[in-house]
């Protein structure tokens, strides 16, 4: 197996892009990444996307994006794993390149969630869950996460306000990310007063519905001198799975998909949690950030909030998290999110983010993309070259 690296990065701002369609967002990010890498073609394109069929009446994204990106005749396919679609597409590219089947693969995560009303998009997002036994019982995607958060508060005797540490940090960092949707800070008081969506989850626990596209070019590490873009090593990009329905898990507060994915990633990279300098967590909801920290091995079960407080998750802390705003601050264009996380982590390692959010002395970054409530989890570990 060949070692792999990223040599090109591209991203559109995360916004309500009413003026752009799905294909133009994808093509913009993909061509930006190709330009960064200094290539005019690739051997294949992996498209990460969840809801193009439901919300844009458009499937068959692979060939559509390949065509509009001016890559006539190149192989392209869509990869879907709910909110984990983006990193799942990176995983496919890594497999193609490390196996030797392809030399350069373009990955683009793209999502357009604002074509319809919020309620319609809410119903579409709920298709990440078990349709027969969760969603058709009236459970929303936020509702599933609320069930987890309620139990977490109960088991560990916490107050809801304790969770504000995660969204407050995310918003603080998003201020300095020009591609972020919410470039404003929030306070603990605003969090405490925020409107309930599914009790105990409020608006400021939840990442916003948004449009966007992000792209990376994955190549063999032995070939990086052929490309213009500054290379970043992909030490691991590993998948773990679990049941779709949270009621089918023995302990819903322990995300086995996260544990499996993170353990595999540590194994193939030869690293352990203490080697990670920055962590891009999948903060779709504050509770998921907490559960991810625990099952990834950064802290023990039930201790995520204390860990975050002690470690200091800010830019100058000992464990900087969601340095470009995370899903909460940057926004959560679901099938694009996993690629945004990897783009942002790679920018950190290249040292090219805005100075207030640039982490010094960071060599190793980990990004974790979670599909559904932890049924598909992709952990990617990147290293500075």
């Amino acid at each position, binding site marked *: 197996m060949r070692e792999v690296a990223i040599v090109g990065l591209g991203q559109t701002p995360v916004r309500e892009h009413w003026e752009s369609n799905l294909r133009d967002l994808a093509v913009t990010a993909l061509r930006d990444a190709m330009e960064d890498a200094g290539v005019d073609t690739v051997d294949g394109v992996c498209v990460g996307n969840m809801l193009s069929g439901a919300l844009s009446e458009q499937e068959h994204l692979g060939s559509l994006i390949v065509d509009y990106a001016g890559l006539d005749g190149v192989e392209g396919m869509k990869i879907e794993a709910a909110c984990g679609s983006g990193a799942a597409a990176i995983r496919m590219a890594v497999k193609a390149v490390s196996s030797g089947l392809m030399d350069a693969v373009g990955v683009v995560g793209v999502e357009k969630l604002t074509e319809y009303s919020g*309620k*319609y998009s809410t*119903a579409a997002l709920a298709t990440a869950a078990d349709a*027969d036994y*969760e969603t058709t*019982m*009236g459970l929303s995607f936020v509702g599933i996460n609320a*069930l987890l958060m309620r139990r977490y508060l109960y088991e560990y005797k916490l107050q809801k306000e304790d969770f504000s540490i995660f969204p407050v940090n995310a918003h603080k960092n998003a201020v300095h990310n020009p591609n972020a949707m919410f470039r404003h800070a929030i306070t603990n008081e605003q969090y405490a007063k925020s409107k309930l969506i599914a009790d105990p989850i409020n608006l400021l626990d939840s990442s916003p519905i948004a449009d966007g596209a992000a792209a990376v070019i994955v190549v063999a590490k032995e070939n990086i001198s052929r490309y213009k873009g500054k290379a970043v090593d992909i030490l691991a990009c590993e998948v773990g799975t679990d049941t779709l329905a*949270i009621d089918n898990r023995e302990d819903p507060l322990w995300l086995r998909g996260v544990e499996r994915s993170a353990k595999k990633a540590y194994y193939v990279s030869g690293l352990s949690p203490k080697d990670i300098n920055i962590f891009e967590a999948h903060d779709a909801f504050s509770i998921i950030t907490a559960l991810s920290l625990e099952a990834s091995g950064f802290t023990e079960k039930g201790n995520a909030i204390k860990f975050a407080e002690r470690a200091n998750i800010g830019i100058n802390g000992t464990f900087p998290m969601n340095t470009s705003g995370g899903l909460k601050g940057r926004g959560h264009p679901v099938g694009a999110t996993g690629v945004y996380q990897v783009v942002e982590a790679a920018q950190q390692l290249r040292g090219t983010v805005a100075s207030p959010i640039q982490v010094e002395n960071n060599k190793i970054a980990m990004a974790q993309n979670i599909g559904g409530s932890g049924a598909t989890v992709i952990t990617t570990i990147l290293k500075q070259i």
Partner: protein
Amino acid sequence: MDIPRYWRLKNQRYRLQGKKCLDCGNLSFPPRLVCRKCKSRNCEPYEFKGMGTLYSYTTIFQAPDRFDQMAPYMVGLIDLEEGVRITAQLTDVLPDDVQIGMKLEMVIRQIYEDGPKGPILYGYKFRPVLKF
């Protein structure tokens, strides 16, 4: 409208019918073709009694389109006596009276109505055990 789905799921929605593995005795709901424990396909239908305790709950304020008219409503995770956990709406109870660990029983209620002219679809919900 997903009438075939409701017809297909009638034994689950009305009778909490899952599966019992004939090789290791493991119970499952929803029914599965392959036993999660021993991977056997030798399973038979098994009806759960519909008694349980509340593991967690939420009140949904922003609901998916189809359930919008009913919001706010409550959904819970219920630990059935037989040792299986399921997801269901809670009914006949006010949010302030709900607590983790409370005893619940299954009832059949309307899940949703598909528009003014569409069919009304029924299924299991859970309510606090009635005391006499």
